[in-house]
């Protein structure tokens, strides 16, 4: 008698047509355990069934690519036989339900992906999105996520070296927590998650398996509603100490050459690790759950296979070398136990005390998962939101807008958050947080690695194709502003429910934009993550593609930062100001509008600009470089004075865009892309201008550094005049001030 009816299928998040496919692949009815395996492996989170057809269009190859998408993480060659290994991953849904643990386990998960490749993690970044800080819920989630990010990274001793945080009401019911981890490895030490060699033992190591996180992947593949708090047991609890031991022990074991393959047990736990390792390696696997270390008694094979308990690894060891591996884990007080064996063929067979309880082709769970060409439909409202009629509005006074923007949480200093993150452990962090993209040196070589994570959801909402392009361009530009050449990228695609054609259109358009920009800027995508169903009560987040771009800094000691270095330098802008207010922070803050088109982007111009700034920094011609983003050039210039020790700036910007009442604010606060503000010693100014002209990059001298004020004019008309000290104090304390308006919580790890 069949136990599988419509109600069972619905509980497993499987659609009737998916069940029909299961019957076909199995050649019989699955039992409940087998159905559970399909449920988690065919979830959106694990199978990428809605996104796969789009992701396939992304450029993933290049001369430096050592490992593209499909493994635990991507890898690119950085010279000297070394690779940078990096990947970004989301933990959005768990972080809404339980902010501290959701964020902490997100950090733990991405760290495992990196060391699983044989790389030592050297830095973490995060891209976070929260609701505006004017609600208690948004503040609670923000506080918990920051504490969780710090709590895990600080304890395990991997520095959090950069990131970005954006606040917008669109994320109030659905925060985004995207975490990127960067590691380095010898190219010859890269190890993969594949099971090979029939007869080789399969080992389990790490934390015991409990009932936590069962169906976490399925949860992450559904929308939220008011009952979501009841899903709290589906959020895992992290143990950074266990992961630290696991990391050190695994890296030590990898050095012995005794491992065939290794994979962490993240989403879908043991189900995912066993089936993916088997199908990647073209082998089968027999596993008896009786050998799996368990935290609780009476766990069923179903619970053991689907548990998402953290800090666990699955390894295939060369037969005959078991003792070596066991001894290293014992040194770290970890117990590696054999749970199974690699077999010829393609079957994943699960036993319980010797009794066969599941038997299926492992590729049915992985490669044979459904692939959907979901319908796409341009939203009916898209044209309307792109219309921006300024004639109906009165511009805000420039000085007032300047003051407001500096204390807007998205623009204000993120010191409140990053001072909770250990950024100095590891002694590789060569740019202090907040001064540039994250930069870590690679000891034993002259090079550094720069990473930036960026993605503007408003641009994605107004124009998803361009939003995708702009995310790539901005992350690459930030990396270039350190002096590094962008060489690879990882993406985290955060969208709503893909079963809605409008959402799927946004997704397809954004991916198309990412692909266009990655091809033009020659930054291949080496991996990433897709997070769909980011909706609460039927309201989707802004389409938010987050790009993590990695750059290679040939001379780490030449790293460039955003801050002015001395009075009397010439201040120039590289790139054109088109005075575009569409989607700008100015419009949102001063007029409450998210409208207009996203800023234009000429990819050839962007590429020329980035190459120019990298060359200028390499030649030692720039004292600072900072790109124009949220808040436009006015905010960029202000940020160049902050943390500089009070070096002011006097600048007169050529009036840009259409003449009229809005021209001054559009010139100051418009967010045109492809612009970098640089400061240059007077004696070098001609050389910089000549290089820019030769590269075909527009260059404008706008003023000079010095004094104690930020004095900005447009077309000769004074607009903003503020003391650096006062402006900096307001900017630096804005977020902390908002957070202090209520009693603190006591969550957090200790040292």
């Amino acid at each position, binding site marked *: 008698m069949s136990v599988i009816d419509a109600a069972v299928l619905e509980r497993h998040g499987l659609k009737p047509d998916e069940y029909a496919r299961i019957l076909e692949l199995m050649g019989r009815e699955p039992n409940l355990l087998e159905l559970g395996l399909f449920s988690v492996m065919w979830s959106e989170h694990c199978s990428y069934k809605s996104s796969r057809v789009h992701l396939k269009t992304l450029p993933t190859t290049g001369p430096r690519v050592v490992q593209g998408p499909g493994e635990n993480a991507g890898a690119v060659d950085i010279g000297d036989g070394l690779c940078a290994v990096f990947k970004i991953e989301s933990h959005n849904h768990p972080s809404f339900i339980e902010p501290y643990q959701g964020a902490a386990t997100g950090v733990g998960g991405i760290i495992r992906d990196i060391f699983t490749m044989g790389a030592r993690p050297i830095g973490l970044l995060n891209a976070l999105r929260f609701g505006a800080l004017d609600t208690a819920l948004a503040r609670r989630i923000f506080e918990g996520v920051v504490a969780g990010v710090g709590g895990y990274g*600080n304890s395990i001793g991997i520095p959090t070296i950069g990131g970005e945080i954006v606040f917008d009401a669109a994320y109030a019911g659905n925060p985004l927590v995207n975490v990127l981890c960067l590691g380095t490895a010898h190219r010859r030490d890269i190890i993969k998650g594949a099971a090979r060699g029939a007869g080789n033992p399969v080992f389990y190591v790490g934390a015991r398996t409990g009932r936590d996180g069962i169906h976490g992947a399925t949860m992450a593949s559904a929308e939220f509603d008011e009952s979501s708090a009841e899903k709290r047991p589906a959020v895992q609890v992290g143990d950074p100490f266990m992961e630290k031991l696991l990391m050190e022990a695994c890296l030590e074991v990898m050095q012995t050459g005794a491992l065939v393959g290794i994979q962490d047990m993240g989403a879908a736990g043991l189900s995912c690790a066993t089936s993916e390792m088997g199908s990647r390696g073209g082998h089968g696997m027999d596993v008896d759950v009786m050998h799996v270390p368990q935290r609780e008694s009476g766990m069923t094979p179903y619970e053991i296979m689907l548990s998402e308990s953290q800090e666990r690894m699955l390894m295939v060891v060369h037969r005959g070398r078991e003792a070596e591996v066991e001894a290293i884990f014992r040194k770290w007080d970890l117990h590696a136990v054999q749970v199974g064996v690699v077999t010829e063929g393609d079957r994943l067979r699960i036993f319980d005390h010797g009794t066969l309880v599941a038997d299926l082709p492992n590729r049915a769970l992985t490669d044979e998962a459904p692939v959907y060409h979901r319908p796409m439909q341009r939203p009916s409202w898209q044209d309307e939101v792109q219309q921006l009629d300024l004639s109906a509005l009165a511009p805000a006074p420039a000085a007032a807008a300047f003051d407001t923007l500096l204390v807007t949480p998205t623009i204000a200093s993120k010191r409140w958050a990053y001072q909770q993150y250990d950024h100095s452990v590891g002694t590789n962090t060569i740019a*202090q947080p907040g001064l540039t993209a994250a930069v870590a040196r690679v000891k034993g070589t002259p090079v550094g690695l720069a990473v930036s994570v960026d993605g503007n959801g408003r641009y994605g909402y107004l124009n998803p194709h361009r939003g995708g392009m702009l995310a790539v361009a901005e992350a690459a530009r930030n990396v270039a502003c350190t002096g590094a050449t962008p060489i690879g990228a990882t993406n985290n695609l955060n969208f709503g429910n893909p079963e809605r054609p409008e959402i799927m259109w946004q997704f397809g358009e954004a991916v198309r934009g990412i692909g266009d920009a990655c091809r033009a800027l020659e930054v291949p995508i080496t991996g990433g993550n897709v997070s769909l169903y980011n909706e609460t009560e039927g309201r989707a987040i802004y389409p938010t593609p987050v790009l993590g771009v990695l750059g290679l800094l040939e001379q780490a000691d030449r790293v460039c930062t955003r801050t002015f270095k001395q009075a009397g330098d010439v201040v120039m802008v590289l790139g054109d100001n088109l005075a575009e207010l569409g989607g700008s922070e100015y419009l949102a803050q001063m007029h409450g509008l998210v409208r207009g088109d996203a800023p234009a982007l000429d990819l050839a111009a962007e590429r020329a600009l980035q190459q120019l700034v990298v060359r200028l920094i390499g030649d030692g011609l720039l004292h600072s470089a900072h790109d124009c983003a949220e808040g436009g050039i006015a905010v960029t210039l202000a940020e160049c004075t902050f943390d500089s020790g009070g070096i002011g700036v006097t600048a007169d910007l050529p009036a840009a865009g259409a003449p009229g009442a809005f021209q001054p604010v559009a010139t100051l606060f418009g967010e045109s892309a492809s612009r970098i503000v640089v400061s240059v010693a007077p004696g070098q100014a001609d050389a910089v201008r000549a290089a820019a002209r030769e590269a075909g990059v527009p260059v404008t001298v706008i003023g000079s550094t010095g004094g104690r004020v930020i004095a900005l004019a447009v077309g000769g008309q004074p607009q903003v005049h503020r003391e650096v000290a006062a402006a900096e104090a307001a900017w630096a304390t804005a977020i902390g001030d908002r957070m202090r308006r209520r009693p603190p919580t006591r969550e957090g790890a*200790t040292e």
Partner: protein
Amino acid sequence: MTVAVVVFPGSNSDVDAQHAVRVAGAEATLVWHKDTDLGDAQAVILPGGFAHGDYLRTGAIARFSPIMSAVRAFADRGGPVLGICNGFQVLLEAGLLPGAMVRNRDIKFVSRLVPVRVEQADTPFTAGCRQGQVLHLPIAHGEGNFTADADTIAALEANRQVIFRYVDADGEASAPGNPNGSVHNIAGICNATRNVVGLMPHPERACEAALGSADGLALLSSLVHHLGASSSR
């Protein structure tokens, strides 16, 4: 000239300390906490991190590690021992230094570069510093709020055992200059015989200008100089 850096499970600044000692011109070896012998080491560093996860109380389990008997014997013989951050907490728990750590005044983990004033220049780790010299060193801790009973504090002050104090931009040990609530702005202390020093800031993370400060090198160079002087005697 060799410095032993003890590795507890959960130590995370062990290789940083080793690297910094090498920058200062000496050799450093990593010694596993289950070992019982410090070999021919002439100084010992207990590094930062989260030994044993700090789950019971910071440093509380690490003091039972087998190597700690050897560290205690080494300290009793007058050997120089430096505890940094979590290593300082371990020294407190082990009774090699007086006092205790509690949660930071503002509850949160604090990670930033802070000015620290050298109060005494007569330890193996500060001999190359000038009394009153202000060093810029990173802190990164959640429980760095040093406390002790009034008598202990009075004795530490009277015996000049306060070696480092947090100060403000003007070099004063003021309330605004205190990042974690430590009593008397205490950032580091020594034992009565002045050979065991513990501090919360991380000198080993500030030994190269590229890292934002090279001020921490003063401590490790002092040690290397001290060892050189003692071995040539």
